[in-house]
């Protein structure tokens, strides 16, 4: 009798420890026991319900949620900028982007990476969460070769990998969302919850769009994306000098007529240039430039107006 009491206590402690370790394991375990007829279905749900802790920060936004945020952010950007419709150029940019993606730290996102050119003379590039990447015609015109364009795309891919867009969401919005979701047992919402969740969704989009289009990322995130760009381009086989060249063009144009887009949302190109050159010096095996790339770049952008 005494023994069975101790076993009972030990068993309890074991369950508690394991349930604290992982809610998903708890759910699986309860599910298996329910199937085996050891626990009633109602009890299973209750075990799962109590074991499920609320999510806390941006790091716990699921891949699917990131995709829906990214889609809507992309839609808002596209409501502000018209699309530059040039199928062969769009295909070229997507192929170049894909070549870098397979050499990046995050080659897979929920629905993959996709690139679109915006019909604007403003110099700008933006990455919505989950891999919706935009570059303006104005930026394309400033690139002299494939190395420069590769560096810009790799910088944006770096933002997606490091989830910089999601990091711009105010924590209070996530807390509200997770609280609301935590109370729901299924993925289908009633009118009241849906209205509440849509309201928070709009605020989340506001945070991300404001960062991408108006305020810009935190300086440290731009430096991080530059560092990632250097490494992704080198891994793909590009000369990392493409980023220095691009920042050189931006530094030369700073203070001139161009004030919007890139200039509004990015830290000084001159400062970034110094940090990029330092990063390049740390690389021992630097790929050489090749005329074949410059030639195809010139063919692709020929006729751009």
């Amino acid at each position, binding site marked *: 009798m005494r023994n*069975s009491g101790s*076993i*009972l206590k030990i*068993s309890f402690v*074991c*369950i508690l420890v*394991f349930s604290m*370790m*992982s*809610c*998903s*394991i708890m759910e699986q*375990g*309860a599910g298996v*026991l329910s199937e*085996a007829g*050891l*626990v009633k279905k109602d009890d299973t749900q209750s075990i799962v319900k109590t074991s*499920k802790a609320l999510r*806390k*920060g941006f*790091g716990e*936004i*699921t*891949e*699917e*949620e990131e995709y*829906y*945020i990214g*889609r809507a952010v992309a*839609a*808002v950007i596209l409501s502000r900028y018209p699309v530059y419709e040039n199928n062969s150029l769009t*295909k070229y940019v*997507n*192929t*170049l982007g*894909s*070549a870098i993606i397979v050499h990046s730290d*995050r080659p*897979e996102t*929920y*629905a*993959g990476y*996709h*690139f679109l050119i915006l019909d604007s003379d403003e110099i700008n590039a933006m990455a919505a969460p989950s891999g*919706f990447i935009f570059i303006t015609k104005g930026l394309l015109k400033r690139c002299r070769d494939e190395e420069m364009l590769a560096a810009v795309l790799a910088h944006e891919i770096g933002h997606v990998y490091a989830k910089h867009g999601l990091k711009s969401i105010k924590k209070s919005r996530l807390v509200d969302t997770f609280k609301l*979701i935590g109370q729901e047992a299924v*993925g289908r*919402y009633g009118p009241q919850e*849906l209205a509440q*969740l*849509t309201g928070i969704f*709009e605020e*989340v989009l506001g945070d991300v769009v404001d960062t991408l289009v108006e305020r810009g990322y935190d300086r440290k995130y731009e430096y991080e994306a530059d560092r990632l760009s250097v490494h992704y381009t080198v891994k*793909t*086989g590009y000369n990392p000098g493409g980023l220095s060249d691009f920042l050189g063009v931006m530094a030369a144009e700073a203070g001139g007529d161009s004030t919007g887009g890139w200039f509004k949302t990015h830290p000084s190109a001159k400062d970034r240039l110094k940090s990029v050159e330092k990063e390049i010096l740390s690389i021992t095996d630097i790929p*050489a430039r*090749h005329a*074949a790339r410059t030639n*195809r770049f010139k063919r692709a952008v020929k006729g751009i107006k």
Partner: protein
Amino acid sequence: MKRRNRFIVLAGALFCVFVMLLLAETYVIKVQSTHLKKEPKFFAQTVAVLKNGDRVEKIGAETGWLKVRTMNNLIGWIHPSAVRTIKINLLAMNQPVKSQTSADEIALAGKGFNKQVEESFKARNKEISFVWVDRMLKIKVSTNEILAFLKKGKLGEYGGAK
């Protein structure tokens, strides 16, 4: 007494299930779909296409790739960015939440910001069109196109001087 015995059996069974799952190192596919590759590289032959929510069991690892067994007993390689772990990492217990298994991808699948929320957002913001977003998603680049691009551009292993 009878009730207590039943509870002991139940607790013991739960404990066994936890240990089994702990040892299994199961992953779940978190992207819409991913290719199970014959070798640990992107340009390797595809063994099967795995879908969101499919579970795989880790049986090995190599620089940046996971060797897995699918529920249909197919063996191949996948990139870690396509999966979420549902294994308990005992060694990471003292590390920040970020490195731990936290959000449960299975329990949360379809919850939170989902298609229903997007539809509701669209109804409230009619001036925002998703037409180009959907067109954008249709732009696909095949593995062969990427390979040809690298080759023609003398990139990576197709490049010459360093």
